[in-house]
């Protein structure tokens, strides 16, 4: 295995370098395992050395060409979605009969870029593990039950990642308000006024049975009083929290 690696390195000196440059460019934090899987022939030390050389070459060429955002990290929504033409050209010189490799971002739809002025509508993607509740819906505002309290999200909201607690999420579109009870999840608010809200379970308020809620609340309050271990106490407390949130949602 080692001898084979030495041979290929001597005969095809240029090709591997192109590979490693491509991989470095595609993802800033490229992992050695990704590179190793692409180039099965080379041991990891070789690859690390090649990456280091590649990064030196890249930073030199990048600083020469455009020094706009070399050090500043762009938001994920601002990265250019076009194919890198200089890479394609250098690829064609080295391997003219092969298509340039496709990067993962070429399979994805390009994200909407951050507008220079605040857009008028917020685009909401509300997904559950088994269904996509709202997909790309343009709304005026959503109010999400973050752990830090009810958070109102308007277009142009500062990019935030919010953990959600059990509570009501309301989607405001003109005079329409749609309310869901969310069990827990996360909300990702992006700079381009796109909100990705993910929850494990979300139901419209009409589908909740009030009597079951009361029963559950009584049961878990009693469990909390009689719990002994830390874990039991935590479970009982979760039950109390969720049921009182549902209670408040139904009555409020």
């Amino acid at each position, binding site marked *: 295995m080692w001898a084979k690696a030495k041979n290929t390195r001597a005969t095809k000196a240029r090709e591997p370098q192109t590979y490693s440059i491509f991989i470095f460019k595609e993802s800033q934090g490229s992992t050695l395992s990704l590179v190793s899987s692409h180039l099965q022939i080379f041991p990891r030390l070789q690859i690390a050395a090649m990456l280091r050389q590649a990064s030196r070459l890249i930073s030199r060429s990048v600083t020469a060409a455009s020094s706009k955002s070399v050090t500043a990290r762009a938001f994920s929504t601002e990265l250019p979605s076009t194919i890198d033409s200089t890479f394609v050209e250098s690829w064609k010189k080295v391997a003219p009969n092969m298509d340039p490799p496709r990067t993962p971002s070429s399979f994805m739809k390009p994200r909407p870029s951050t507008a220079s002025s605040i857009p008028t509508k917020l685009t909401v993607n509300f997904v559950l593990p088994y269904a996509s509740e709202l997909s790309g819906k343009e709304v005026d505002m959503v109010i999400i039950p973050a752990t830090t309290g009810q958070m109102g999200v308007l277009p142009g909201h500062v990019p935030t990642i919010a953990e959600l607690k059990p509570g009501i999420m309301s989607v405001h579109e003109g005079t329409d308000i749609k309310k869901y009870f969310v069990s*827990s999840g996360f909300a990702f608010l992006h700079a381009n006024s796109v909100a990705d809200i993910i929850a*494990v379970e979300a139901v419209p308020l009409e589908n909740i049975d009030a009597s079951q809620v009361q029963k559950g609340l009584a049961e878990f309050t009693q469990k909390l009083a009689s719990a002994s271990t830390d874990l039991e106490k935590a479970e009982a407390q979760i039950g109390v929290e969720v049921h009182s949130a549902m209670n408040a949602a139904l009555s409020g």
Partner: protein
Amino acid sequence: MASTAAVPFWRAAGMTYITYSNICANLVRNCLKEPLKAEALNREKVHFSLSKWAGGKPEKPILRSDTPGV
């Protein structure tokens, strides 16, 4: 840098976020009206077979299944 950040009560009790989230979802599903409740509880069904390996051979598998007859 001491990590003295306030942890949620469930994390302090040794529970992970996934466990917490699944318990919350389970409780919400239990409070739904019929027939949505039946459909919802369908989502909680689990089926897996787990076998540990010792000395290059798999040991007796543990089978957990909520679907009858499998």
